[in-house]
């Protein structure tokens, strides 16, 4: 009998064929060495990296970026710290130079405290960046109409949040995520932000999402490397569960075998 190891599963995102459906951030780790171990054990093949704050001034950022490049996996530069389409576009262009990739995680922030994305500026920036040949990974809320607008301007990937960045609250509104999945069966959908524990990642994958992107849940764990391994298994479990097809929920707890001594036709009377 074959074991349905999720590692045999491949998927395509942004023109690349990958095994791992776990995308990782590169902030908040105790050290770059610890991050490297966590990423290795997670099996992740995409790591996001921020530029905006690191790139200003003289000779900024290079050492840390070199460390990220040395991991030998796909680098997804992000525009974190941008508050307008214009800032995000400039950051994306800089990222293309620095990392030699047309991938960009588009992140335009609309609220300074909770880092909620600004959907209006995100759509505006996505339209410009797609015309400039970028593969845009837009970070957005779980609003279906915003997802539609992003698809309209040509996004092939949409990354709705589970909940607010760094909140660890998990999937705040699974119904909204399901609605986006139903509306866009052919786009690559990744739950980005809000994941706090492995079960949240499993849940996102069970909804039929193509991947999950997270940072704090691993980086802020007391043992980030062990947590990275936990997320590897969780994402694989969720994906396998989705592919296997979950049973439908029922309105009552139904024993699958009759209780001894009770004729089965009497059980629910």
């Amino acid at each position, binding site marked *: 009998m074959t074991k349905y190891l999720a590692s045999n599963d491949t998927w395509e995102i942004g023109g690349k064929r990958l095994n791992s459906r776990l995308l990782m951030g590169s902030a908040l780790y105790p*050290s770059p060495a610890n991050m490297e171990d966590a990423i290795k054990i997670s099996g992740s093949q995409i790591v996001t990296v921020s530029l905006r704050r690191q790139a200003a*001034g003289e000779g900024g950022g290079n050492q840390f970026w070199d460390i990220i490049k040395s991991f030998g996996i796909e680098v997804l530069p992000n525009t974190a710290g941008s508050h307008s389409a214009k800032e995000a576009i400039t950051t994306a262009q800089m990222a293309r130079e620095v990392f030699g990739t047309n991938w960009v995680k588009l992140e335009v922030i609309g609220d300074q405290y909770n880092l909620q994305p600004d959907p209006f500026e995100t759509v505006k920036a996505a339209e410009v960046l797609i015309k400039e040949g970028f593969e845009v990974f837009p970070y957005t809320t779980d609003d279906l109409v915003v997802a539609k607008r992003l698809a309209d301007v040509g996004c092939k990937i949409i990354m709705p949040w589970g909940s607010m960045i760094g909140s660890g609250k998990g999937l705040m509104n699974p119904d909204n995520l399901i609605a986006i999945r139903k509306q866009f069966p052919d786009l690559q959908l990744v739950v980005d932000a809000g994941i706090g524990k492995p079960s949240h990642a499993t849940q996102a994958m069970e909804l039929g999402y193509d991947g999950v992107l997270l940072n704090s849940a691993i980086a802020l764990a007391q043992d980030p490397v062990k947590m990275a391994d936990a997320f590897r298994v969780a994402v694989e479990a969720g994906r396998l569960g989705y592919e296997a097809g979950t049973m439908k929920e029922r309105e009552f707890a139904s024993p699958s075998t009759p209780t001894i001594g009770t004729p089965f036709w009497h059980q629910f009377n």
Partner: protein
Amino acid sequence: MNIGIAGVGLVGRVLALNLLQQGHTLTLFDEDTAYGDKAAGMTAAGMLAVFAELESAESVIFDHGNRSISLWPALLEQIGISDAYQQKGSIITAHPQDYKELDHFIETLKSKVPEASEIKLLDRRELTQLEPDLEQHAKAFFIPQEGQVDAQRFMKASSDYLLSHSNVTWHQNIKVDTVRSGEIAYVGKEDTFDWVFDARGLGAQKDVENLRGVRGEVFWLDAPEVNITRPTRMLHPRYKIYIVPRPNNRYIIGATEIESEDKSPMSVRSSLELLSAVYSMHSGFAEARIVNMVTNCRPTLRDNLPNIEHSTKMTRINGLYRHGYLLAPAVVEEALNKGMYK
């Protein structure tokens, strides 16, 4: 012995003070002047935060930190500034909406060292007894073992002491090219010694692999309306901000942590973050005067931990990162015991 030290930052100075006590003759090299401000040790707040730094560091920091705390008083006495040492505890607090950060903080510490379970959570009344000016905060941790060294006074007094010491020759404004077994090479010359130390921090990038700079930005504020007497940290989901009191109502506010080797002046974003954080902590900071805005880079290795490396007639010490004052005396002690004194 005749000893050469390349780099007279914090580590170079602690080394020199130790070696002079053993009667050695020293030649010091630094690309800066004796009273210059290029060294990261000049920018530091000098906190001896043996617990608080553990939140984002490994537990080896704890052992080295405790050892350093016991070594600092003698070092400061040696250069005549015993009063630059303070150990009356530190405060960790957060805004009410960020109280979860306090939980995360203490849980992380407890997972690293069992001693953390003794850290006490104060309510408003207990906190106000310790620090009346922090009365607006309803919850805070108090860590009695923590303290601080007045970093800027240490740097100045150690310069005075070393410059006037008859066993010390200090080559200022000399950029060292390389340090190797028993040799320090600079501007086409090579001096030989019985033992050499490489304590150049980021200046050693050519000789030390995987060494990077991590940018930090700090303010110096004069705030006559504020009377906070202990190092105080404010936890926030994205920033870690501390207020370190100095004499005469001066406060060092820091520090950002940005993965960049850029030493250019402070950014507007960083200044907004730091200043709005301190203002929200105590409204008396509104009328504080900005005395200085400083940027520097911390010499850091891949694991963010210090490294000591020995070879024939040579010891390199590097990577003290954001823990310079917390670790230097213990790291230097270990470097000497396992190297030159072995």
